[in-house]
Every structure is written in structure tokens, then in C-alpha cells.
């Protein structure tokens, strides 16, 4: 409990520091050209509408964007307006309703996604974000609100997961906090890169960059993790964990300050953790799943076991998620209903995933991680041709090709989730059954 408090205090301490850096960097959160408020009047004949800004009740009159129609403008509902600076002063590029009406279907969909996302997070230390944000967007939530609400659901889930796995003796709080400190710096670097690309090539360039990074990281890291897991699975005594040659070499570097991480059972120079933390943060700022670098980084560079690495990632996720939520909250973009509906099942899923790790061998975690990463790579890869066409670097896609690629992308994501859900449940069930049988035998022996 003491350590949990320490963790919360550390996050609270890191937050203003990070917020200051973020402010200096221009902010991690929402776009500055975006306005929030209510549409009070629509003048269809002149193609203009009256808008009252939330923050100061200032009244604006904006012109319809090129493809905009009066029916796209919801009267009296909270909206987000993006202005098209290129089209002239006061021209709206897009108008999105900020907060959707909840239907039973939406509620159930959110709860199902939350459960699987939570299960994955508890088991491999990360994995909710890459599916939750697109899933929410497909339900009609605007991108910024989806990212904000997801971020706000991430930190309590990570907190509960980290605490649970800390109790199982798996989470290395010290390693997590050291990594989180550098990860926050990494997030800032990631944002700067994003901004530079957005400035140079616009939205399509940014989308392409995100997808290319996604696919490259997932194929490289996922492939490596998967191969490693297969090798381990072939060995009969694959109960424990072997330190990778790279981690062994890193542990030999005697560059002060040397740090001892008790749970991870590693003594390593603090400098080795810096690049791993930085890259985790950069990836988090780019594709929202820092854990895809953080967990393998802790395994193969620092030398922690997969169990400890995936548990420690939850500590990092908590610190980063908490800080991110405050950023998005300040902009008023968190839809707490979405956050809490996802939390209702993901808090159960994350604990189920966490206890699942106690029944499986180390390589099973790696198999799940590797498979999910490779399938998600397919999902993102299918998006690349579309972005290339948007940039004019490739011929326009035919509607059939575009629809096919969209379907591939969507179903690959569903397949990734289903695969993970099935592997985790099956491994857990098998582990529990054999453990129960063993307990029965001990009980019978004790009675005799």
C-alpha cells in the first residue's frame, strides 16, 4: 500500500513538471484551431451559421465549408469546429458533435471492447489503446474526444492492474517510475516530430507517418518477440526466463549511477533505461501504445522477465495516462460516460488478465504479445495505400479497393482481439485446471 501511495505521489509530482514541458512544446492535447461551443442559428441561404464559444460566450459567424450542408450542423448541441485556414477567414472545415447520444447498442459495444482491452492490458501490460480509440471513433465519437476519454480510462485501469500485479510480486515500481520519467520526455519529442510532419505534409502526411511507424515497429518487434517465444516453447524446461545477449551486455556496463531493481532482479546503469523510456514515450505520442516498445525493451535491453516487464509497463502507463488525462481534461474533451462505461468492464478484464499471468509460463505472454502485434501490423498496413493516395504519391484508389482495404483493416483488428482473448482464456483455463488437480492431490495426501 505504501508503494502504491508513493506511486500516486510520484505521478502527482511529475504531472506539473510534464505539463510545463508540454505547454512549452505547444501542448500534447487538442489542436489550437479547434473551437468548442454551441451552434445557435443556421442561415442556409447565405451558407453561414452563428456559433457561441464555450470558454468566453463570444459569438462568431462562420461560413459553411465546401462539402457542408445545413443538416450537418446540429442546433443546440455541443460541437467542435475545425477552421479551414487555407479556405479563408472564418470558413469551417468540419463540425463534429462532441458527445454522442447513448443507445443500448453503444453501451454494450463499449463494455465488450472494454473487457477485451482490459484482459489484454492485464496480460501483456498494454494493448487497450490501439483498439479502443478506433473503436470509439467508429461509434461516431470525434477523434479528439475518443483519445481523451480513452486516456482517462487508461490510468485507473493501469493503477488497478499495477497494484494487482505488484501484489503478485511482479511489478517493479522503481523501474516503472524511472522509465516513466524518461517516457514523459519521449512524449514531448514525439509530439514535436508529429507537429513538424503535420506542418510539412498536412493531415494525410501525419496519418501516413503514424501508420508506417506502427507497421515498422510492430513487424520488427512483434516478429522478434514471436520468434523468441517459439524458441522458448520448444525447450522443455522453459519455466523461467533467460536474459537476452543484449541485456547481458547492457548489464555489464558500469556507468554510474548504477541502479538495482529488486523485483526485476536486475542491476543496471540508469543510462541504459533512458533510451528505452524515451522510445516508449515517443511511440506513445505517435501510435498511443508505448508498451509495444516498453515491454520488449525491458525484456531484451534491461533484462527483466516478460512477467515483470508487462507488469512494470502498467506502472508507466499509469503515470503517463494520468498526466495525459489532465492535459485533455483541461481542454474539456473527456466524455466521462465513455470513460466509465469502458472502465466498468476493463477493470474486471485487467484483473482477470493479471491473474492469468500467474498460471502461464513466461513464453505464453510473449506468444500473445507477438501475435497481437503482427496482426495489428496487418490492420495498419492496409491503411497505407489510402494515405499514399491522399498525398498524391500514388494513383487514386478505386472504391472497391478502398472498401476491401478498409475491411481488411477492420477485420484484422477484430482478429487480433479475438486471438488474444482465446489464447489468454485457454492458457488460463488450462493452468487453473492443472493447478486445481494438483491441489486436490495435495489435499488427498494430507487427509491420508
Amino acid at each position, binding site marked *: 500500500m505504501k508503494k502504491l501511495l508513493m506511486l500516486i505521489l510520484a505521478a502527482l509530482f511529475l504531472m506539473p513538471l510534464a505539463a510545463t514541458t508540454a505547454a512549452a512544446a505547444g501542448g500534447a492535447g487538442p489542436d489550437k484551431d479547434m473551437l468548442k461551443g454551441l451552434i445557435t442559428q443556421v442561415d442556409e441561404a447565405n451558407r453561414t451559421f452563428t456559433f457561441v464559444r464555450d470558454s468566453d460566450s463570444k459569438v462568431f459567424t462562420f461560413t459553411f465549408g465546401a462539402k457542408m450542408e445545413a443538416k450537418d450542423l446540429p442546433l443546440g448541441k455541443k460541437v467542435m469546429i475545425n477552421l479551414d485556414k487555407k479556405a479563408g477567414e472564418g470558413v469551417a472545415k468540419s463540425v463534429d458533435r462532441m*458527445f454522442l447520444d447513448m443507445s443500448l447498442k453503444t453501451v454494450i459495444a463499449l463494455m465488450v471492447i472494454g473487457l477485451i482491452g482490459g484482459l489484454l492490458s492485464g496480460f501483456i501490460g498494454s494493448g487497450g489503446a490501439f483498439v479502443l480509440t478506433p473503436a470509439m471513433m467508429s461509434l461516431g465519437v470525434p477523434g479528439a474526444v475518443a483519445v481523451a476519454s480513452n486516456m482517462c480510462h487508461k490510468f485507473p485501469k493501469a493503477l488497478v492492474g499495477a497494484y494487482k500485479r505488484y501484489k503478485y510480486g511482479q511489478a517493479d515500481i522503481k523501474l516503472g517510475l524511472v522509465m516513466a520519467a524518461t517516457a514523459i520526455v519521449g512524449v514531448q519529442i514525439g509530439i514535436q516530430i508529429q507537429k513538424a510532419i503535420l506542418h510539412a505534409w498536412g493531415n494525410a502526411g501525419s496519418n501516413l507517418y503514424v501508420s508506417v511507424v506502427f507497421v515498422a515497429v510492430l513487424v520488427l518487434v512483434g516478429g522478434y518477440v514471436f520468434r523468441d517465444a517459439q524458441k522458448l516453447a520448444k525447450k522443455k524446461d522453459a519455466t523461467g526466463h533467460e536474459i537476452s545477449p543484449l541485456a547481458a551486455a547492457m548489464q555489464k556496463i558500469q556507468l554510474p549511477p548504477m541502479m538495482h531493481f529488486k523485483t526485476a532482479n536486475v542491476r543496471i546503469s540508469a543510462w541504459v533505461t533512458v533510451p528505452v523510456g524515451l522510445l516508449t514515450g515517443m511511440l506513445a505520442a505517435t501510435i498511443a501504445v508505448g508498451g509495444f516498445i516498453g515491454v520488449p525493451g525491458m525484456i531484451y535491453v534491461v533484462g527483466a522477465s516478460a512477467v515483470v516487464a508487462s507488469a512494470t509497463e502498467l506502472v508507466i502507463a499509469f503515470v503517463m495516462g494520468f498526466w495525459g*488525462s489532465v492535459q485533455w481534461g483541461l481542454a474539456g474533451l*473527456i466524455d466521462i460516460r465513455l*470513460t466509465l462505461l469502458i472502465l466498468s468492464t476493463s*477493470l474486471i478484464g485487467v*484483473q482477470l488478465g493479471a491473474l492469468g499471468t*500467474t498460471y502461464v509460463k513466461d513464453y505464453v505472454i510473449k506468444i500473445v504479445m507477438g501475435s497481437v502485434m503482427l496482426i495489428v501490423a496487418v490492420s495498419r498496413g492496409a491503411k497505407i495505400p489510402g494515405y499514399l493516395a491522399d498525398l498524391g504519391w500514388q494513383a487514386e484508389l478505386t472504391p472497391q479497393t478502398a472498401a476491401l482495404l478498409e475491411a481488411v483493416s477492420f477485420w484484422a483488428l477484430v482478429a487480433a482481439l479475438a486471438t488474444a482473448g482465446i489464447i489468454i482464456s485457454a492458457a488460463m483455463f488450462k493452468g487453473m485446471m492443472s493447478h486445481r488437480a494438483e491441489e486436490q492431490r495435495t489435499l488427498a495426501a494430507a487427509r491420508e
Partner: protein
Amino acid sequence: MTTFDKNMAAVAFAEAGDHQTAKEMLGGKNSNANKVPEAAPKPYLKTLVLGAISLSAYVLLFKNEAWVMETFTKGGIYTLFPVLAAFFFSFVHGPFGSDLLRCLGLEAKKK
């Protein structure tokens, strides 16, 4: 040690939170050796209470949806609302989830 002394010493240990030592002093060190280990009782009541609190909080939230959405999205100092709500739910709904899993017989493997 007399029985009285032993009992008082055990009480002292129990009060200090060291139940194991207290039990050993009262029951003798080996008295439990032949006992069949018992499974910990399932936390049905706690699960129900936490579940009720959590469910009430959800109902309260959605009953006052309009006010909540208005207040929670004001930004600035109002950021505390969504962040604290997320903390509140993780401290109530999280333990509820944990106990629910225990009631369902899903527990971590004991090493």
C-alpha cells in the same frame, strides 16, 4: 509461562497485527500441522456492498447526464471532476471486480 501469561502475550501479538504468532502461541506451534488447509471464505458481502456502491454511482451519473456532461467538460479547474471520478471508480469498481472474481473462484495461483 502460565496460561494467563501466554494468552496475554498472544493478545498483545494479535493486537499488533501479528495474527500468525498469536495463533501459534495459543494453539501451539504444531497444532495446525495435520489440519487440512482450508480455502479462504469468499467475500460475498463485500462484493455485494461494493457492487451496490458502484452501481449506484453509475445510475447517479447517467440520471444526471446533462449536468455531468456540462460540468465535467468545462476545462480548467473542472478537470478535477473527470480525473477524480476516474479515481473514485477505480477504487470502488476495481476492488469490486477483484472480489467478484474471487467469488467466482478465479484466483491467482499461490506460489
